């Protein structure tokens, strides 16, 4: 008897499901473009990763190119040019991550201390401006700024007098790291401070009132209330940013490179572009990109575990 009821219930739900599917056919139709798009542009390209294990040739395509195992990966990690690009990527991005993270936090703390509402709003708006410009416009503006007879050299000449020798720092690879670092700060400091300001505005005001009553100064309040309260936000942003350790902004690096600096400053992304799209070394650059995203995922995963152990906050 019981079994019979159960079967009946199941049948009912199946019939119900079919009825629902019929009733929702318009909704599924609405979803169709997104599903088709995702299948073609995301899943089919994921399948293209097979090329990393092949000796891809255009005529044979993915289905007839011979498999070569890990040969391409071995080449990636034994070619000096590619190792150099890996080293550059790690150096540029770890400097950006470890030294760059405090800047927007400091800006948020300082903005929060501003008492004049209107002045604060205007400063914030101005600080967002570079975020809305494309990297290439920023590169163009800074190349004017740092030109041999541009503002930067004029200022330096004023400061150090006639003995100062004018240099265009954009044409010398040894300045590439500071250029990438500071231009990155300049472009993103205002925008990245938004998230911290939002976190600060969520702090319970009663804590500050209590601290003031207890005679705690404003400086101490920053260190004992504000910073600890926004720590979870800082940690989450940091973990998500660690994935970028092997993935520099292509537009920024490519933009700042020129004939003088390119060879010295090649990073993974720019080298993949040059090898893959310009020279047609498809399999090798796919393997390079594959290794890059794999490592990126591993880094986020591990740093999430480490940070979670240390502080109890994580993204998963």
């Amino acid at each position, binding site marked *: 008897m019981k079994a019979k009821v159960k079967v009946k219930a199941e049948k009912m739900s199946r019939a119900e499901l079919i009825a629902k599917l019929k009733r929702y056919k*318009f909704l599924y139709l609405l979803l169709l473009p997104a599903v088709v798009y*995702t299948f073609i*542009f995301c899943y089919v*390209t994921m399948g293209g*990763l097979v090329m990393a294990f092949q000796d891809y040739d255009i005529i044979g395509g993915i289905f007839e190119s011979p498999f070569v195992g890990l040969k391409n990966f071995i080449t990636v990690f034994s070619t000096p040019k590619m190792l150099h690009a890996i080293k550059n990527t790690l150096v540029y991005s770890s400097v950006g991550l470890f030294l760059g993270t405090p800047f927007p936090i400091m800006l948020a703390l300082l903005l929060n201390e501003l008492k004049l509402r209107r002045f604060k709003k205007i400063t914030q708006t101005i600080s967002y401006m570079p975020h809305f410009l*494309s990297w290439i416009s920023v590169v163009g503006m800074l190349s004017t700024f740092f030109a041999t007879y541009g*503002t930067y050299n004029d200022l330096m000449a004023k400061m150090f007098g006639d003995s100062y020798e004018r240099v265009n720092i954009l044409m010398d690879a040894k300045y590439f790291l500071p250029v990438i670092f500071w231009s990155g700060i300049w472009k993103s400091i205002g925008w990245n401070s938004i998230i911290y300001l939002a976190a600060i505005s969520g702090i319970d005001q009663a804590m500050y009132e209590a601290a003031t009553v207890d005679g705690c100064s404003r400086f101490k309040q920053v260190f004992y209330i504000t910073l600890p309260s926004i720590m979870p936000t800082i940690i989450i942003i940091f973990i998500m940013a660690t994935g970028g350790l092997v993935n520099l902004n*292509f537009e920024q690096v490519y933009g700042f490179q020129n004939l003088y600096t390119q060879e010295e400053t090649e990073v993974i992304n720019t080298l*993949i572009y040059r090898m893959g799209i310009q020279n047609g070394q498809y399999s090798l650059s796919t393997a390079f*990109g594959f290794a890059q995203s794999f490592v990126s995922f591993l880094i986020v995963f591990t740093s999430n575990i480490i940070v979670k152990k240390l502080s109890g906050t994580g993204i998963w």
Partner: protein
Amino acid sequence: MKKTTGEKIFDVFNVILMIALSITMLYPYINQIAISLNDGMDTILGGITVYPRKFTWVNYRTIFTSDSISRAFFLTVFIAVAHTLTSLFVTTAAAYTMSKKDLPFKNAITWFLIIPMYISGGIIPTFILYRYLGLLNNVLVYIIPGAFSFYNMIIIRTFIKGLPASLEESAMLDGANEAIVLFKIILPLSMPVIATVALWLAVGAWNSWTATLYYVNERSLYTLQYVVMQLIKQSDVLQQLAAETALTGGEMTKEAQTTSESVKAAAIIFSTIPIVLTYPFLQKYFVKGVTIGAVKD
């Protein structure tokens, strides 16, 4: 409440620091405006700061009469509009469906759509795929890729979910079907979030130039930022040549160099001014994106 001396000093210092920050943010742009409005031969003498020394419109005239720039401008306007509309259609349609609580197979669909956020094939497989699809040297390469964004879908879906369910129920009782509910009720009410996402898409399309670099060789399909990129790189090359010829004691044809530097400045200002003039009024829509995304985490 009384302020201590230390706090007063800090407040003054803080205001000065913020003014210095604002100047640092604005100066390169204002400098660029000044150069774009200054006589090219005069600019080469150096020393242009925040105002043009020898005022001229000639650099802008060069930009406006240049075939490649005006073509790129109209193409970029078209791309920004077409991409924004396509993406809004695909993303909003999906968001409406995904806002239904009792949609069969909803979990499986979510997984299907979310996985590509974490794994991607990378640029070379994408390039090969586009070649198979005939997207290389095709204007559609600017419009179709990015037509669906999971992140934007979540933003719109969250908004739709927040609308009062009673509106939809009573309409259904009155005999409206899903299509009527969507077009007559949900879409008009969701305009704030749709406008927000539209702005993100439009600015993204306007600023994009790597798609041209990767997938397009045909001159008639260059986007505005790509043409600006070429001018910048070209002006850099000319500067380097000038530096080299100066080293060897030769004289660089001054005209070539000046024009390139001034025209570059005019092109940068021309291509960015629509955004720079509007973002202060639209910024709240952009800021929303940052904070909604954070809440989701």
